[in-house]
Structure formats: structure tokens, C-alpha cells
């Protein structure tokens, strides 16, 4: 079971590029790419808040919980 990052879905819905989002929230594009692929151990609340502000969404639109998904960060 694990957390599934659905940031790529929201980026597609908003028709925004990862590079532009990374620049507007002030994190490296590499880090956003890692977040998009779910290869991070966590997300800071302020990063999440900035993402929600830029993408005009709720945290639940960016991450979801799936019991069947293995936790890859351990």
C-alpha cells in the first residue's frame, strides 16, 4: 500500500508544463520530476500549498492512497 502521486494528471488537466510549474513554485525541475514519478520520501506542506495555488486544486487532487500500490520509498 502506498501513496500515489497524481501530479502528472493535474498538469495535463491544467495543460501546464512541469518546467513552468517548477519555476513558479521555486523548486528544481528535477525535484518536481521526482515528485511526479513518486520517487520522493515526502512533500513539504509549503511545496504542496504552492502546487495547489499554482494548479488551483486541493492536495487530494495531487496525491491519493492506493492499498495495492507498493511503497517504493522504503
Amino acid at each position, binding site marked *: 500500500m502506498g501513496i500515489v502521486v497524481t501530479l502528472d494528471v493535474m498538469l495535463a488537466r491544467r495543460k501546464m508544463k512541469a518546467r513552468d510549474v517548477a519555476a513558479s513554485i521555486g*523548486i528544481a525541475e528535477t*525535484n*518536481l520530476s*521526482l*515528485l511526479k514519478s513518486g520517487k*520522493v*520520501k*515526502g*512533500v*513539504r506542506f509549503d*511545496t504542496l500549498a504552492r502546487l495547489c495555488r499554482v494548479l488551483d486544486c486541493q492536495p487530494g487532487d495531487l496525491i491519493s492512497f492506493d492499498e495495492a500500490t507498493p511503497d517504493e*520509498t522504503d
Partner: protein
Amino acid sequence: MTKVTTADRATDLKDNFAGLERLLTIMFAFTSVSLVVEAYVPLKQLISGPPEFASISLGVERLTRLLPALLLLGALHEGRRLFAHLETGALLVAATGRHVRHCGEWIVAAAVSALVIGEILAGTQAGWALLAGLGAIGLALRSLAGVIDHAVAVQADLDQIV
């Protein structure tokens, strides 16, 4: 009251580390020269002296007495390397723990060798206290290295949080 920022603290630390590295370099040079001077005569006796058992035995004995100091020189060298490394600003990395651990091990080795050889002890309470202190510092440094290793692992986890 002015607020101390992280950058100020890092600069202060770098200055401290640079100062300590210079101090240990001077101590290392001074101790090296002292040891060479101390070892010169017995070494010369061993190399160019007459091959008599008594003189060889005396030379070896005098050289053996220098072993704890030689091991402490190793600790000084490791300390220099530690502060030279810390000066670069890479604090919570594996190398920090490694240098601290090696420094502790050199000190413990010096304390144990002094105990075995009995040179520093000379039958005095002060000698015992000095050895116990040395050993405790060495063991404490080894434990500290374990804490640093743990902090490095925590830092690596934190680095994966965006």
C-alpha cells in the same frame, strides 16, 4: 539584538574549522619534529651501531616508548583531515563520521599502547587519570561517529523530501 542566520552560522563554523585545521597542522608539525628528534639516536644506534644484543635491545626499548606518541600523531593527522574536510562545508556526509571514528580509534590505540608499555603511567595516579581520560575521549569519539552516521542517514532521507 541581531538575528543570526543560517548563512552566518555556516560562515562562523567554516572559520572555526579553518582555525582548528591550522592549529592541528602546527601541532602535527611540532610533534613530528619532536618525535624524529627523539627517535633519531636510537634509530642511528640500531642502523649503524655495533650488532650487540644490549645496544639493540636498548634502541628497541627506546623506540617502543615512542609508540603511544606516534599513535597520538595519527590522531592529530586524522583531526587535521577532519577539519580540512569540514572546512569545505560538507558537514553531514559519510566522510565526517569516518574521520571522527578514525580519530577516536587512534586515541584508543594510543591509550592501550601506553597502558601496555607503561611509559606514560610511570606508576603515578596522574598517569592513570591521563590514560583513562584518553581512552574515554577515544571511545566517546567513536560513539559520536555513530551519531554522525545516523544524522547522515536522516539527512539523506530529508534530502528526498521536496
